[in-house]
């Protein structure tokens, strides 16, 4: 082939990933060692095993990525590994504190097991899911499964009410939070659904106060999502989960339609819903009261629904100050749920504002890498899925940390990758697996089709369309009227218009109502 532009050597980033893994392991294992050294003046009993498992996981992840997602973003996995490792160290540290107070502990080993499961799940996603677009076939399956999972805790006999929230299901003695998995399924559904219907939603409706409103009849899905969120709020009594789903939905609708009015409408609808909830449900109203008057002695001393937990968390943060007490030197175990809902306060106490800032930066970089992948990836479904997942991650952090620092009312959500809790950890590792998969196709140079789906797979994805070879050659250039992003356009420019490159457009997705083309680049 005669390239008119010299091909730039694309870095896969695997070497960088290896170094970053090393750094993240130092953070996690070092923290674990410090906890032991600072509390008992010796390394934790299972230190060698812990270090070996962490190193082993990093090696496996690295090899899996090299094997199946060569071009994956090098930051994603090391960042998550660092967060997970620090989380494990803090959970172990709080175990020590709980034992000293004569309370039930043992969260550390359990969380290590869940970490193994999470990493395994992420590896499975990377290995088995060769192309994220495959998921689009399951748009409506994902919706049904997601809704079923969300409603599972309401099933009598299966659901478990923990601290007033009907969020868990209990199977064989294990409690599980199905909302965490539902989060992924609904992100897939939203992405699949909106990529097909976004043109309809973008159609202009009436103008009001300079805002381009959507047509009234297109509000349908938004109303459904809103109703779902409110339902979760009302039945499962959990403001955080409901807020998270609604945030996810509003974000992807905005990305799909580029209509600011959708965000505004969404926010207004949620505000109305939340307002009604505050009015109707005392426990939601309590949350607001606690938020506004946390330090008020009356609120603090209230037997139920008082601000004791959040204020104790604030005390912890204050003790940490700028530099923190150091691993094992603070008193994070004084806060109820110090290793799950309040792990941020625990980290802020022992690592200080400096450490907390660093951790927040890790999350921010992680989420921003996800957004970068969304910008880079070539298909609309991938864009919506990646941005939905990345935004959910960031938004979840916002809800949790904002609640603990009293920026917003406290709601019960777990801090991704850090908080003790299996369902959340596994679900978030799956999300990272998906982001790695999407980032691989996002960063893959257009020329390099190694490891990309074969024509047959592509056809399978799209379902029943004609083979690519039968397409006329002039469709190789994208329609300028379409909403191609700049990055893709540049890739197109760099690519020599040779006959052995074919860009195929297929008009129909399996639902039969989409008009977003799925682009398959094939190299023979």
């Amino acid at each position: 082939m005669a390239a008119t532009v010299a091909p730039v050597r694309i870095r896969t980033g695997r070497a960088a990933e290896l170094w970053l893994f090393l750094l993240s392991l130092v953070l996690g294992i070092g923290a674990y060692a410090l906890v032991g050294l600072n509390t008992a003046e010796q390394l934790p009993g299972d230190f060698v095993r812990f270090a070996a498992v962490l190193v082993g996981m990093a090696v496996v992840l690295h090899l899996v990525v090299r094997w199946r997602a060569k071009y994956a973003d090098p930051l994603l996995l090391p960042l998550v590994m660092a967060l997970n490792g620090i989380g494990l160290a803090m959970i172990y540290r709080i175990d020590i504190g709980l034992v000293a107070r004569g309370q039930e502990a043992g969260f550390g080993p359990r969380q290590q097991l869940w970490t193994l499961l999470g990493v395994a799940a992420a590896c499975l996603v990377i290995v088995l899911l060769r192309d994220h677009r495959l998921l689009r076939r399951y748009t409506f399956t994902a919706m049904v499964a997601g809704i079923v999972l969300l409603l599972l805790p309401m099933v009598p006999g299966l659901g478990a009410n923990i601290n007033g929230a009907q969020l868990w299901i209990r199977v064989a003695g294990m409690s599980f939070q199905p909302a965490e998995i539902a989060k992924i399924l609904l992100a897939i559904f939203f992405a699949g659904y909106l990529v097909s219907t976004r043109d309809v939603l973008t159609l202009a409706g009436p103008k009001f106060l300079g805002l381009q409103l959507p047509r009234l009849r297109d509000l349908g899905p938004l109303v459904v999502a809103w109703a779902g969120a409110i339902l979760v709020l009302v039945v499962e009594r959990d403001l955080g989960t409901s807020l998270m789903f609604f945030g996810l939905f509003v974000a992807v609708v905005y990305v799909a339609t580029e209509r600011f009015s959708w965000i505004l409408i969404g926010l207004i609808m949620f505000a109305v819903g939340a307002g009604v909830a505050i009015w109707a449900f005392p426990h939601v109203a309590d949350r607001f009261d606690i938020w506004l008057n946390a330090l008020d002695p009356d609120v603090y001393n209230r037997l139920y629904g008082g601000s004791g937990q959040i204020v104790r968390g604030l005390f912890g943060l204050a003790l940490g100050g700028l530099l923190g007490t150091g691993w094992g030197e603070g008193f994070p175990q004084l806060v109820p749920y110090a290793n799950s809902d309040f792990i941020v306060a625990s980290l802020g106490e022992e690592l200080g504002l400096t450490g907390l800032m660093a951790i927040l930066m890790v999350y921010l970089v992680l989420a921003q890498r996800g957004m970068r992948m969304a910008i880079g990836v070539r298909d609309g479904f991938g864009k919506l899925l990646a941005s939905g997942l990345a935004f959910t991650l960031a938004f979840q952090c916002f809800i949790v940390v904002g609640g603990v620092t009293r920026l917003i009312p406290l709601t019960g959500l777990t801090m991704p990758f850090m908080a003790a809790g299996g369902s959340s950890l596994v679900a978030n590792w799956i999300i990272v697996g998906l982001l790695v998969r999407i980032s691989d196709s996002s960063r893959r140079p257009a020329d390099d089709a190694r490891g990309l789906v074969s024509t047959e797979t592509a056809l399978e994805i799209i379902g029943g369309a004609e083979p690519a070879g039968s397409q006329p050659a002039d469709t190789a250039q994208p329609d300028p009227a379409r909403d191609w992003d700049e990055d893709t356009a540049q890739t197109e420019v760099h690519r020599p218009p040779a006959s052995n490159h074919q860009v195929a457009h297929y008009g129909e997705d399996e639902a039969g109502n989409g008009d977003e083309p799925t682009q398959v680049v094939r190299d023979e």
Partner: protein
Amino acid sequence: MNAPLRRLSVVMMLMFFALMGAATYVQFFQADSLNADPRNVRTLYKQYGQDRGPIVVAGESIAYSEPVDDAFGFQRVYTDGPLYAPITGWYGMYQMTGLERASNSVLNGTDDSLLLARLRALFTGAENDGGSVELTIDPAAQQAAWEALDGRNGAAVALDPSTGAILAMVSSPSFDPNDLAGHSSTDVDAAYSELLEDPDNPLYNRAIGGDLYAPGSSFKLIDLAMLLETGDYQPDTVVEAPTEYRLPGTQDTYIRNPGGLACGDGEVPLEYALQVSCNTPFAMLAVEHGEEALAEQAEAFGFGQRLNIPLTVTPSVLGQDLDDAQLAMTAIGQFDVRVTPLQMAMVSAAVANDGELMTPHLVATERGPDLRVTRRADPSVLSEPISAETAATMTDMMVNVVDNGTGQAAGISGVQVAGKTGTAETGVEGPEGTVQPNAWFTAFAPADDPQVAVAVVLEGTEELGAAGTGGTVAAPVAREIMQAVLDQ
């Protein structure tokens, strides 16, 4: 779709900036007030894990932290606990009192003056240890006062008149702070409630707080200062001194002299009135000069001032809006006038120090963990309640009280002692109608070159009975303390 993606990235960034702002607000700007919140047990726990600096008297630690093998790491130990308890207070799990509280920032190493030491610790990785506090207490005087009080309800304070340094501060009965600084909350709770329920209130620091005492005749020193300051009176000025003085505005309420005795022949020199502590002349003269003059003089001696030595001293009070009858009562140290022993020691100290009242203080030096002195007491003048001339006159008259009058029990051979007795009716009646007055004595010595000023109060008890007057029970205690100081 990339434009909204970019905008969404910006939104995410803003969300995280908001989080960082909130974290900064809590951990930096709000941190101090949160750490000081009484509901915050962390502060206490954190300090428990620290090697707290000692409280030192004459080179010996009277309170120090000892490493122990429990969750907290250090146990506070008080040597001579009861002797120094009113000063040190205790450092408990739930509360700290006394100097442990007042000098907490130095003892735990967070004081601003220890900033350099803290910075060094930060860079060397050393533990942030506490500084030490050295007291002005003279252990011999403290011990003498403790032994002289001998478990009776009362208090004694000794000052160095020329500096204001507190040489002794004893409150009796006392308690053992070791019982309250333990790490077993059940034991501490039990000990604390027992002390709280004790009718003798051992937790009160009677020297500077607790229930204040009516000063009785020792208040006449303030009357005398007020009179002499007018310039119209001399020790030999003859004043009216009837056996009975009917209170103005009353039909049949009389002030009588101690024991209902006549005072001379009804007209006596001022010096004699003080010597035998006649009530009627001082009551009449106070009414003559008015409440304002008396209040001014009392305030100049420190009444109404909330001193921090650094323990907080309950202000002594004169009473307010007095009519003439009440003023007459006040002038002999009854009615609403209430004082601390420290306040009465300050009156003597001002007289001893040529009329200059030095600010009383307990802490001589503060040192960092490296034993470098970070703060040294700087004697300062609190006020000048009387002129040097008045002070000299009062000294002579007070020497006369000890030499020839009610205070003879305070006499030390070879040393000129200046003093004044007081016996305050408390209204508390013992069995068979005997009154149980509080006995006072305040003094300084030697009169020509004062080294020590003291005030002693002993609460009236059944044991002392009506015989317990300032001259008989309080003066010997004062003598022991002064002797201990002068012997060095």
